[in-house]
């Protein structure tokens, strides 16, 4: 069950990093820290043997990232 614990640790690290990590005022950095949590979720799926959900999550992650990045770029930038 190492994968479960690694997943939980990653989930927690990602969460704490996204909230209190260095320079999270920068939105790109915050987005990347959240990716850590997402990876933790993948590991948890894996350790509960839910491979189909894992597959879907992996595949969905790309459009989700795209949407978020697109919104960031549209709104952030020139002050």
């Amino acid at each position: 069950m190492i994968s479960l614990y690694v997943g939980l640790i990653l989930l927690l690290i990602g969460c704490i990093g996204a909230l209190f990590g260095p320079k999270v005022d920068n939105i790109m950095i915050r987005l990347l820290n959240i990716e850590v949590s997402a990876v933790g979720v993948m590991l948890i799926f894996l350790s509960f043997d839910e491979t189909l959900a894992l597959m879907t999550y992996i595949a969905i992650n790309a459009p989700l990232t795209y949407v978020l990045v697109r919104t960031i770029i549209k709104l952030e930038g020139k002050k």
Partner: protein
Amino acid sequence: MLVSVLCCILGGIGVILHTNVINKLIMLSLMETGIIGFIAYYYYLDVAILMAICSPISNIIILLGYIKYLELKKG
């Protein structure tokens, strides 16, 4: 297995602690490598293949987004 654990944990901490986005992306790839190791350890090869194909896509999207972001910050 141990390698995967190390990759994951180190990658995770690395992503958090680095402040340069490019470095963070590299660390993220390291972490994803760790996951692929985990998946292969349980013999779900199809998932591993899919992960290997799909994870670069989001990385590239973030990378290009960051480049655009830098451009915007400068100009």
